[in-house]
């Protein structure tokens, strides 16, 4: 509980309308999109400029408060949940696009700018910002950087990291940093920028971002294929990549997802099929035509059971409908949706699917899997009910064993969601004490007091005060 003096001080520095301390407000700044976890901050502050953020941070230092930076709170690993209490520092009111530099092909924006707003603003100038996380209509640029968010276009265009040129922001001790710039080449010193990308708010508070822009593709071709055997789908993916074709989109859905979509949409999807691949190639029209033909040939060679190619935009929209609806269809089935992001080298896809099937049987859980096949980035999604402790236990056991397998194949415990709270133990398995120890020393160098987003990434730092509210959903 903060004293009235502290609150008054905050109000005076940041503006009364930007400081919240009522329980009704604090409760709703205690979550993100990660299931089963709820925190409760002591205060939530929403500065509308960098000076406000600096002032708020300086009050945190005086009071020794923990700070959890928050964008749109759409994260799926708990990165923005204030499990140690303290201050939630919301950046959604710092949402100005500061510059679109057409000579250097960059855009500079405050951290709270919504991803799709930046996309649209640069598109209006004939430019393209490719990273498109599933939550792009609400997620913030700062959040994307902090989580190194991916998206559907990752395979061909890369993820957020590949577009960040410069970052500005604050360390807990008040140091203002500016790292990177508009230079295409820059090897001066350690790349602090690259350490901050994906640091989940544990190293610094990112308040400004400069991103790289490219030219948008001129043309696009969409194909959809169905497979009775998911291994054939896996083989198709491997062969497309081996043929040096890099589609913009190469998405997969398993039988359970197909059936969830069909239950919900009733658009006549073939329920008997084991997998669906959605493939989009884009770029120069001549290249697109050639690549589409190449993909088609491969699908025929591996004997895909059905292949559809869109002749126009309306048909393309119809073909992509199933994949676009996947999350909605799956999320409706049960109250609790646990969306994971196990990722493997793409040559091991078929094996991973087989393992998922085996483990579903073993643990008796309902899991629908869809995801970015071209990246080897899968979203096995458990359909559960958090009121059923046994079922939740089974789900966690299922994922635990799945991650064991994923790691044994050279995969990673997170392709694009981050570690946050939910995956701390998996991270330890992936890196071991040695690897975690190095990360720990980096963390200490940036934030020696451990006041920035405590309780995240590192398993040993979960504060005992994590249980902040009554009820069954605490950490």
């Amino acid at each position, binding site marked *: 509980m903060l004293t009235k003096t502290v609150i008054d001080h905050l109000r005076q520095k940041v503006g009364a309308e930007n400081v919240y301390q009522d329980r009704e407000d604090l409760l709703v700044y205690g979550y993100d*999109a990660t299931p089963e976890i709820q925190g409760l901050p002591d205060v939530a502050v929403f500065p509308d400029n960098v000076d406000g953020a600096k002032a708020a941070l300086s009050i945190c230092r005086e009071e020794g408060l923990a700070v959890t930076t928050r964008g749109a709170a759409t994260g799926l690993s708990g990165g923005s949940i204030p499990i140690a209490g303290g201050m939630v520092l919301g950046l959604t009111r710092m949402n100005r696009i500061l510059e679109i530099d057409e000579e250097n092909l960059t855009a500079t924006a405050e951290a709270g700018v919504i991803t799709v707003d930046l996309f649209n603003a640069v598109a209006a100038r004939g430019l393209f910002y490719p990273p498109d996380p599933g939550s792009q209509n609400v997620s913030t640029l700062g959040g994307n950087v902090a989580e190194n968010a991916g998206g559907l276009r990752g395979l061909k265009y890369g993820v957020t990291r590949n577009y960040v040129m410069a970052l500005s922001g604050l360390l807990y001790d008040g140091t203002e940093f500016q790292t990177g710039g508009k230079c295409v080449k820059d090897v001066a010193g350690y790349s602090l920028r690259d350490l901050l990308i994906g640091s989940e708010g544990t190293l610094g508070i990112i308040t400004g971002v400069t991103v790289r822009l490219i030219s948008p593709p001129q043309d696009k071709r969409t194909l959809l294929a169905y497979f009775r055997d998911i291994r054939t789908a896996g083989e198709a993916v491997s062969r497309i990549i081996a043929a040096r074709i890099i589609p913009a989109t190469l998405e997969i859905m398993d039988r359970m997802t197909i059936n969830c979509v069909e239950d919900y949409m009733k658009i006549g999807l073939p329920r008997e099929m084991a997998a669906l691949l959605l493939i989009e190639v884009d770029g120069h029209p001549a290249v697109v035509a050639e690549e589409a033909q190449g993909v088609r040939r491969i699908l025929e060679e591996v004997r895909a059971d059905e292949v559809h190619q869109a002749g126009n935009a309306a048909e393309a929209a119809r073909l992509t409908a199933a994949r676009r609806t996947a999350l909605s269809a799956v999320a409706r089935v049960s109250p609790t949706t646990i969306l994971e992001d196990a990722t493997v080298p793409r040559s091991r896809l078929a094996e991973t699917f087989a393992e998922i099937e085996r483990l579903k049987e073993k643990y008796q859980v309902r899991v629908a899997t869809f995801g970015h096949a071209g990246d080897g980035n899968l979203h096995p999604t458990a359909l559960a009910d958090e009121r059923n402790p046994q079922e939740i236990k089974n789900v966690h056991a299922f994922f635990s064993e799945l991650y064991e397998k994923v790691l044994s194949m050279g995969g990673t415990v997170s392709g694009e969601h981050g570690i946050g709270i939910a995956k701390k133990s998996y991270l330890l398995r992936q890196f071991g004490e040695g690897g975690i120890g190095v990360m720990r020393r980096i963390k200490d160098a940036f934030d020696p007091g451990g006041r920035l987003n405590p309780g995240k990434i590192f398993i040993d730092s979960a504060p005992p005060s994590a249980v902040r509210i009554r*009820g069954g959903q605490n950490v």
Partner: protein
Amino acid sequence: MSEPSPMGNFHPVDAPSYESILQCMRCGFCLAVCPTYALTNRERSSPRGRAALARAVAEGNLEFTPAVGEEAFFCLDCKACSTACPSGVRVGTIMEFCRSQEQAFHPPSLPAGVLRDFILKRMLPSPALMETSLLPLRLYQRLGLQWAVRRLGINRFLPDVLVKLEGLLPLLSRPLRLEIPTVIPAHGKRRGRVAFFLGCAMSLVFPEVSRQTARILSQQGFEVVTPREVKCCGAPHLAEGDRESARRLAAINLDLFLGADADVIVTDCAGCGCALKEYEELLEGKADHERLGRFRAKIRDISEFLAEAGIRTEELKPVPLTVTYHEPCHLVHGQGLSGPPRQVIGKIPGVELREMKESSWCCGMAGSFALKELETSRRLLERKLSHVKVAGADVLITANPGCHLQLVSGLRELGMKQPVLHIVELLGRSLPS
């Protein structure tokens, strides 16, 4: 720790179901479409935040505090979040329940409560009483006072809410309910029998619109039966948190319209249509399941019905107009009807549809919201009208009386010339005389 009871801190009567709240997975997709979140950037005024507050009350982590009640009423119930939600959560409906809870926990002060009870429990359920209570307003208009108030600016001295009310009120004529023939025969080759659900606002404020609806249905080959004993659909009661009265009215309408022996039940009011489609849920366990299902299967918005039945276009005359279409929340989000109104517009020869930006964003009327949250309502209306302006069409089309009033008042205030027409008025102009 003991398991929290499903009700938690909710009052046992008319509480939202725990199931419906738990369905929210907090993905935040709703944040992009919520008008009150867009204005406030405050999580508790977002659908995800509101669902979380309801969940905290249900799980015993929060009392049903005045702030929870405030958020329930600050919600426009525009249901845009239902359209955006991947998991099918209906925060608008959860907030309707919370409005009932607010009445239980924090009943309105005496004079306000008496007025509310009079409106919800006596006036709205009785068409006759409602028609008489609007009589003084009609007299006031006839006496030309309205003109004087508007022209001379006397209303500047009235409290803001009266100014708003004054701006909303159109010239009232005789209620249609008393004038429309109970049965209108089908014209040409008969295609079926339609029961017309004539809503209160349509009958009282827009009788000419509903006259067109009946005329179109008949011209299109449908026999139109309009039961005189029709009651208010209950939408205002649900919106104000008086579910008990809503159920009473719904039960009467259910019997009345199932007795009308019609193939379908059509309404030209998006708000009524939305409420009628929810009777099944509202009366669950209180009326026969099979009858509720049968009733639900018959309900159609007029555009939905015309698009489905197919418009006979042979006799239609060209209407050389460019139009833009504002989607009523209760049509696009409440009933999921976005295509059919556009299909109807597309069938009218000579009409060119110019889409406006954010056509499915609330206009700020939202029932009584426009009178309670003047400033928020004004900002939403301005946002809407700025898009109308850019679209630059001759006519602004909509399909709901609330939106219609709000848009007319906003256009007048800004000195914009476009008339507002209900979609059936536009189609009506195309009909042979």
